[in-house]
């Protein structure tokens, strides 16, 4: 991992000193354990700030939207994919961005960590040899790292960025995982039970829009829930309005969502939002054999059609 970090710094340094970019967007250590924050480096000497670890969880593509200067960006598999989507959608200028791709080792899910701490404050955390050591006032716990990996990473098949300009470190092998296994049980349930499930889950929503703000693909100037003339759907936390908000958001990211998991991580009410958007990924895969963010040229499913597309639902 350290060699990845070093090569990120080297690549960043090179780009900055050769004036290929004006700015590097990457991660720096956070003030709390298991945290990093996005950082912006515009001087070659500052590249030491850049870190690379299992806590680099923010999807930095959000920071590239409508940027005017030339930017180098540190990107995991999912980040690079959402960048690719944004490039296709002309929200990021391909000519102005240099993707410093790095292999992802899987992110630590702070919510999973928190659950193990039973309310105790975490003061220090170290990750070594696939183990995570958590220290605090009067306790020290050791767990296998895999217990804390984000669900989105557990089903990830693109840990190596499929699109990049510079690749740092060595490519990791991609896991053969059941991409959509997470929602299989839910799908198998009768409609009524699914309804009850989502009702319960989404009823928790307080309409803070953290999911939207963090999503690299939510770049509309005016979100549909904020629109007037007409007001299609209410902004209340009436269950119907909330359900529809999440439904439409899922529809809007259909064929674009790369399952970076940012929405779920951002949700203060701990709603498993991935459960909603994951379905869109599955629909795209099954109906149109499409996975978002793997190409800069391929037209996403909702932008094209085939004469023999599936239409079993049409009479």
């Amino acid at each position, binding site marked *: 991992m350290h060699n990845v970090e070093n090569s990120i710094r080297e690549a960043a340094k090179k780009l900055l000193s050769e004036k290929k970019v004006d700015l590097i967007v990457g991660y720096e250590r956070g003030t709390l354990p298991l945290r990093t924050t996005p950082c912006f480096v515009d001087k070659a000497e500052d590249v030491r700030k850049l870190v690379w670890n299992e806590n680099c969880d923010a999807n930095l593509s959000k920071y590239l939207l*409508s940027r005017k200067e030339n930017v180098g960006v540190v990107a995991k598999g999912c980040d690079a994919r959402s960048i690719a989507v944004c490039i296709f*959608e*002309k*929200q990021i200028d391909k000519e102005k961005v240099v993707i410093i791709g790095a292999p992802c080792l899987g992110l630590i899910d702070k919510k999973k960590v928190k659950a193990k701490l039973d309310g105790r404050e975490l003061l220090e955390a170290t990750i070594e040899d696939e183990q995570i050591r958590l220290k605090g006032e009067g306790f020290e716990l050791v767990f296998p790292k895999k217990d804390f990996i984000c669900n989105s990473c557990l089903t990830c098949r693109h840990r190596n960025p499929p699109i990049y300009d510079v690749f740092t470190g060595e490519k990791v092998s991609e896991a053969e995982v059941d991409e959509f296994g997470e929602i299989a049980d839910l799908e198998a349930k009768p409609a009524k039970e699914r309804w009850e499930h989502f009702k319960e889950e989404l009823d928790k929503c307080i309409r803070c829009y953290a999911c939207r703000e963090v999503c690299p693909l939510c*770049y*509309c*100037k*005016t979100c*549909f829930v904020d*629109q007037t*003339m*007409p007001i*299609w759907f209410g902004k209340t936390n009436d269950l119907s309005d909330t359900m529809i908000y999440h439904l439409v958001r899922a529809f*809007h990211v259909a064929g674009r969502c790369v399952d970076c998991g940012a929405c779920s991580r951002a949700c203060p009410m701990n709603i498993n939002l991935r459960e909603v958007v994951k379905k869109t990924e599955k629909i795209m895969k099954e109906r149109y054999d499409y996975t978002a963010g793997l190409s800069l040229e391929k*037209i996403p499913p*909702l*932008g*094209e059609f085939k004469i023999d597309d599936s239409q079993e639902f049409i009479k």
Partner: protein
Amino acid sequence: MDKLGSVMVIGGGVAGVQASLDLADSNFKVYLVDSLPSIGGTMAQLDKTFPTNDCAMCILAPKLVAAGRHQNISLLTNANLKHVEGKAGHFKATLTRRSRRVDEDKCTGCGVCAQKCPVEALDKFNEGLSKGGAVYVRYPQAVPLIYIINKEKCLGCGICEEVCKAGAIRYDQKDEELQLDVGSIILATGFDEFDPSLKTEYGYGRHLNVVSSIEFERLLSASGPHAGLVLRPSDGDIPRKIAFIQCVGSRDATCGTDYCSSVCCMYATKEAVIAKEHMNQIEPTIFLMDVRAYGKDFDKYIERAENEYGVRFVRCRVSSIEEVPETRNLKIKYEPEDGKLIQEEFNLVVLTVGIKPSESNKELAEKLGVELDKFGFFKTQTFTPISTSKPGIFVCGVASSPKDIPETVTQASAASTGVGELLASARGTLVKKKEYPKERDVRGQPPRIGVFICHCGINIGGVIDVPSVVEYAQTLPNVVHACDNLYTCSSDTQEIVKNRIQEYGLNRVIVASCSPRTHEPLFQETIKEAGLNRYLFEMANIRDQCSWVHMHDHKAATEKAKDLMRMAVAKAREIEPLERVALGVTRRGLVIGGGLAGITAALALAKQGFEVDLIEKNKELGGFLRKIHYTLENDDTQEYLRAMIDNVYSNELIKVFLNSKVENVSGYVGNFKTTVTLDSGSEVKRELEHGIIIVATGGEEYHPNEYLYGKDHRVLTQLELENRITVAADEKFGNVVMIQCVGSRNDEHPYCSRMCCGEAVKNSLKVKEKDPEANVYVLFRDIRTYGIMEEDYKRAREAGVIFIRYEEENKPKLAKIKSEGKEDLQVSVFEPIIQEDIIIDADLLVLSAAVIPPQENGTLAKMLKVPLNEDGFFLEAHAKLRPVDFATEGIFVCGMAHSPKPIEESISQAKAAVSRACTLLTKDTIEAEGIIATVNPNRCTACELCMLVCAYNAIEIEETKRGKVAKVNSALCKGCGACAATCRCSAIDLKGFTDMQMNLIINTLR
């Protein structure tokens, strides 16, 4: 004598309608004459069309409606030509309009008369498979929608008069005579179907379950007698095994129909496929001689029929059909190629009837003084495929020879160009522009809605409680006036509507009556006459979709009518006047490609007074045609070409750019800008401005890799042979072996090159003519000498040319055999009838090489933003009805750029492209649609998704002060709204069907 700017088109089928529309759209006055009471011809009877399986009525109806309400077209239905005198430029025609016994001005088409008529007559439109009244319309969507009394069947009971609230029945109406002065005449008389009872051996008329293919077409149709179920006549069962017998009345000297009807192989296959789609258990078998799938994308269709649908093709002539008395099944005896006689039982037999010249042709020919060919089609020549023997009289479609719909439509447009060339000086002299009062600006004013609710005689009023709906409408917001009318569409009510608009200061009008599809334009016209923008109008369909479909539940129907009223008011409150933007037109054309099609197009444009830039990539004009020296009719093609080229160079309006290619194209319909690079030593760039583009990039002869071509001087292509025949004085040919489909119908070029069969027949005849001792062998897969060419095929056989069929998987083989110090060419081919290899020593091996699209098509297509098909030819907007248009307005295609084709078809297409272009070039401005998409730049993120879903390339991204935003080109937008529904940001909306309006409609639920 002055020329007249008016035209009489005889025949209201798809050919006549297309010709009329093109002429009317390019400022000629048109009289469209049909002997039937409504237009639509045979195509209206068809279920679906090959090779796209489009619903015929869905694609035809809009054209019929357009013709029906075109300001420059007068429909003269139920009329026959009586007498004509005069000559090109000014004909005087006398017509007889047979009485309908219905007042055309008063009939609203509501159909109560037919509902109540106590007499039943066979429905001819359904080929007698169902019944209608003695007062009827041919088909529900008939244009004009005016009823007619069949006097033969009518009892004269008087009921229709009693029930007709519009007072339209006129029992005493007489036939009337009509005089027309027209500058030109177009014959589009279509065809008759061959009467299958003449082929007695097939038992049509004796065996119930033997039907003609046109009857079967109706059986298949969703609007046919069985509403889309395929049922056999004897007992109403679905026939499991269906036999199609091809060439009934085609390629048959015994019936005097030596020609090929050109369409039957395809339409029978289509019928088989559709039957299969209706019911998968159906097993269709087609008995045929050759599979004549010579058209664009036809072979693919046949392959799908065979492999995906399981349609069985059996090559043979059927010898007899016998009925099994108990089951009424049919036993067919046939002899397939291997010679074993087989008997097979079928549940239904379809006789694929051929095309016969229209019965009326003879009489017309006499009255008009034009010549017919020996079959009774109007006679034309290779280089003038749309001209009859008499100047000023043109012909199109099947009236001149059997052809399918796209070619018919092509010829119709081409005929319109023929007229345009003749009458260019008189264009626009006989069309009147309607004047309207100045539009009242209602923007910003609160809606004042007027509601007019129609009883439609008893059609609505008999089911729905109209007064209560009126009362209800009065309670709805912004409704300031609501009333009911007996017939809202009658001319007196139109006056009432106009008066009420003034009286109540109405600024939105709602009519609750029938379908906007038929009546919206009428009411829009009315409010326009009253000074309102035509879009300030909304309809509630309380008849077709309410009273007629809930006839027995008056209460629910009334409730529904009120709901529909509320929905209409909700929308009307939000409707705004829309503008049809007028766009300027550069009255100049650009033709890309200087072959036959390009030259023809350029000359046709110039003859109508338009300047043309003609771009040719080579150093001289002529293209593919330079290599063709004669035709089957022995025309001298080179002489023709020389004359045409001379005409081009001597025409001041045409500018020729040789050694040139298109570098860049920008702009849109009416306003294109093209950069052309001239390679004359040093490169020069020229900027050209023009209103339309015609793509005529032609085709090329495939350079075979097969059969030692290029490696042995005795192996030639057909074109090379042709050259040799022309150059050589008296050559001895010896054994000439021709191999068909070299480079065609294979994996690399899966299509048929269409012209090679004709070429082979032509050249074999020529070889035989030059050297009667020569032996000519033609090795073929299917002989596709469609149409009148079939005769030449017969002529070749009679001249001793030997035709041997080979199977695709068993292609002929070529070997070099050493003997006496030289190498002989030896061709071996497996003959499927005798099931043996035949070996022929060849002195000449002639390859019928494919026609392939030029490489540059790809780049040009990208520049023009128009599509190519899988084979690399340009793909037209619609395979059937828009054969020379692209979806992108203002760009047209013709000749071999579209697909391989013989000379006369290229000429027709070129002229057709010009006709389509003239509908634009003859205008000072083009009116854009009012209902178009519009962008809210504050919301647009320029993600380009809308561009991906737009089928018309009508959206582009524009750099503005606020950054990039999408922009809709109102000249190109057709108003489908796909972009609006796709945009995540709701940054695009569709005028006339806005999000606001839709939202309000949805909110009307109570």
